[in-house]
């Protein structure tokens, strides 16, 4: 289980979550990404990111609504294939 950054982050990238994450498991490429991504293997589920996000974009994977369910796979996938994740984010935002 891990926290996931979902649709409300897209094109906002407030990054308040990055500052409060105690294990630095949130990242993105400023030149290429429309949202930030949580590494599910590093996340310790403390919830600091969820509370810090002004967009309400972050929640536990098991609490994602159906419309945002894909973001769990997208966050995981960014750490493997960023281009794939960006395409998937674009598809979600379309």
């Amino acid at each position, binding site marked *: 289980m891990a926290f996931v950054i979902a649709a409300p982050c897209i094109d906002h990238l407030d990054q308040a979550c990055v500052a409060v994450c*105690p*294990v630095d498991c949130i990242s993105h490429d400023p030149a290429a990404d429309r949202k930030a991504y949580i*590494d599910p*293997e590093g996340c*310790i*589920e403390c919830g600091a990111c969820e*509370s810090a996000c002004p967009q309400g974009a972050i929640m536990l994977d098991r609490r994602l609504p159906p419309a945002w369910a894909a973001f769990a*796979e997208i966050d995981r996938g960014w750490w*493997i*294939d960023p281009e794939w994740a960006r395409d998937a984010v674009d598809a979600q935002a379309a």
Partner: protein
Amino acid sequence: MIAEIAGRSIADGPRGVRRAPDLADNAVLVARELLSPTVARLVVRPDAGVGSFVAGQYLALGVRVDDRVVQRPYSTASDPAAADAHEFLVRRVPDGALTPRLWALPVGSRVRLGPPKGAFILVAGDQRPHLFVATGTGLAPFLAMLRTLARRPNPPRTVLLHGAARTEDLVCGDEIAALAAGGLPMTYVPTISRPDDPANRGWRGLTGRAEMVLPSVLRSADLPPGGLAAYLCGNPGMVAAAEIALLAGGVAPGDIHAERYWTAPGDMSAPSRTLDSDRA
């Protein structure tokens, strides 16, 4: 689930090998001292030096396991003005992902230490009486705070209420006594929550959970509810109950600073850190 885009099937999923976050080893475990059967003091020296931090903050401490770094955040007990290493109080969780490894790690091993973080910090310049309430290893940030207060020319009166299940977990008593003997106007109030536990045979001090004895400690220490700074750290149950007790006693919400060491089941409120709950 995920739509297909012409020219590439997103549904095929990501391709490649996971890129681990850039979490290089950047510090050395320079000492490990067992303070009790389950609590150790770990001293970690960053390669780049300690740098700037504020009493009360935490750092992520991690070790490399295969292709990833397993990290947990721990409050530093070090004096911000004098430390050349970070000192942590770490409870061993038998089936945890990190602490058994920290226990087994040879002294001298390389580890990962994140930057200091956190808003649970000692407020500078506050000369009102201070109340520190800790459970277990929640004592750590208060050691940093006490060491900081001891450097002030006129430190405020401070009461440290420390709760534990067993007397063996009332660690760092020597350091606390030394701070008081050095002139810091502080009172140390330990309390044991399981007085009938055979491990606590011989205990003649206060008994009861920290949040339960808190009202009597406030009265006996003559701490003015309307004019004190309260800091709470450790068990989220203690933090929640102590907050309620302090608010009911007249302490202003802005004068209560809290750090929960793990998330209580079903707690959807303020953020907390996963510290003692070192899950596999």
